[in-house]
């Protein structure tokens, strides 16, 4: 594994949507103004921002699955090459994969096993993936509505190891999970990263992010305003530069919620 190898480079990305209001007046809604991140091989990068601030849109922009009323600016590069639609066709689903946030991302009418295999997965790969994540064989035959929360989470993560993923985009992997399960999920991510994947984790849960991530990018008001290592965070307030990041640090429970306005700041980011 080459820790200096850049897997994903996102440069000055902007995303806006064309919307209609009551009476059909039209306006553009800009969700991302200017976003810059870089993910290396074996690195977990967490983009932290308030919920509802539109960070998920980044993952969709990388995968090229934004709705038709969206327009994208800036540049995305995958392994040094510009990520064009033809490159996407080749890589998305095999090397670039997404781990969705909840069971609603599974087809309600298709059995779990078939869904995990997807287009190319073999039966052997499926069995391997299920074994790896401690899923019983009977889960293959279950429909999404029959899966418990923990099982569903592991089924979703299984979809990542069925292909030779190099870049994993994980959208809000922790909300709704118990502390144990969140920790387990983070452990799985670490494992995948140690095997050589680059992982881009999008979350509003800074605590969970700190447990696994190497790098934290802070997303606020449509921009990445700061990017620092998780070590900086762990060292304490003084190692952090940006005042917003400092405020985030102070808001962590183990730091005693020193600054009440940090959580306010997070909400305000809406």
């Amino acid at each position: 594994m080459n820790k200096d190898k850049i897997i994903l480079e996102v440069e000055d990305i902007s995303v806006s949507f064309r919307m209609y209001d009551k009476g059909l007046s039209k306006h553009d809604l800009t969700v991302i103004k200017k976003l810059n991140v870089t993910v290396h091989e074996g690195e977990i990068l967490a983009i932290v921002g308030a919920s509802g601030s539109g960070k998920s849109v980044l993952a969709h922009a990388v995968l090229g699955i934004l709705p038709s009323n969206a327009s994208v600016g800036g540049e995305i590069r995958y392994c040094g090459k510009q990520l064009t639609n033809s490159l996407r066709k080749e890589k998305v689903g095999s090397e670039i994969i997404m781990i969705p946030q909840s069971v609603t991302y599974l087809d309600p009418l298709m059995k779990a096993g078939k869904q995990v295999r997807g287009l190319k997965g073999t039966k052997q790969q499926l069995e391997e993936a299920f074994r790896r994540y401690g899923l019983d064989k009977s889960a293959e035959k279950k429909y999404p509505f029959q899966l418990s929360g923990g099982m569903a989470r592991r089924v979703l993560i299984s979809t990542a190891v069925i292909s030779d993923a190099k870049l994993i985009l994980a959208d809000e992997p922790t909300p709704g999970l118990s502390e144990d399960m969140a920790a387990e999920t983070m452990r799985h991510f670490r494992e995948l990263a140690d095997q050589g994947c680059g992982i881009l984790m999008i979350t509003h849960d800074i605590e969970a992010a700190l447990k696994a991530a190497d790098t934290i990018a802070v997303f606020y008001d449509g921009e990445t305003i700061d990017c620092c290592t998780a070590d900086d965070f762990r060292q304490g307030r003084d190692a952090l530069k940006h005042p917003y990041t400092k405020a985030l640090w102070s808001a962590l429970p183990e730091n005693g919620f020193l600054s009440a306005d940090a959580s306010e700041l997070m909400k305000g980011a809406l």
Partner: protein
Amino acid sequence: MKNMRKHGILNRRTLTLIIIALSVIIILAVTAAGFIMDEELYAPHFAEKNLPPSGHHLFGTDWMGRDMFARTVKGLSVSIYIGLLASCATSVIALFLGVIAGTFGKYASGIFNWFVDIFMGIPHLILLILISLLLGKGAKGVAIGVIVTHWCSLGRIVQAEVLALKDSQFVKASEKLGKTKLWIAFHHIMPHVVPQFIVGLILMFPHAIMHESSITFLGFGLPAEQPAIGIILSEAMKHLTTGMWWLAVMPGISLLIIVVLFEAIGSHLRMLLDPYSAQE
């Protein structure tokens, strides 16, 4: 690229309003023309019978030499008039029953659903024939038949809307304040249901007018001496084999245009009131 449209001459809002306005104007013009029309215009002129469409007779003439364009306009205005009357009445019934079913709990809902099931269970055409027989054929029978058979689906929509609103915060707050159900129904629920209702009413019209013409075509609706579209087409049926295509084609297309105009008003109004449907 995508922003190019923004600078077009007409934005969607203006375009939508223009479409609605034009449709309304055309429908009103046809209806008015039919009502003030001199009977002489569609009276028989045996010297000019069986003429295909021409500059002089736009839709041709029939076997009695009656000008088909004038008859069609007259027939459309009669159909629009009956159709509008019936759709308004049936929509009001739908609104009333839907609101009651939605507001007054389980039993009201149960009874409402039961009646909807019954009315949806008998094919509309059969029920229309039955009601027309009951009222001794004619305009009244058709109108009442349409009123009795058409309230079901709009009623269901209204009921669902009301049930959804009932769970909303402001209705719950009113309940805590001790307002009566009726008060809540009229002050909170009605205003929210009304936009849906208006769209539903306008989209009801095509069904009403088509059922009206169908039942008339079969011989249970308007009397034969009335130049209604159903009558015109049923007469045309008898002359189809003689090659007088214009008797069937022209009035039918005119009816089609009127129905499409109503659909246009309804769907464009919906886009204005419910922007979600316009996001595409």
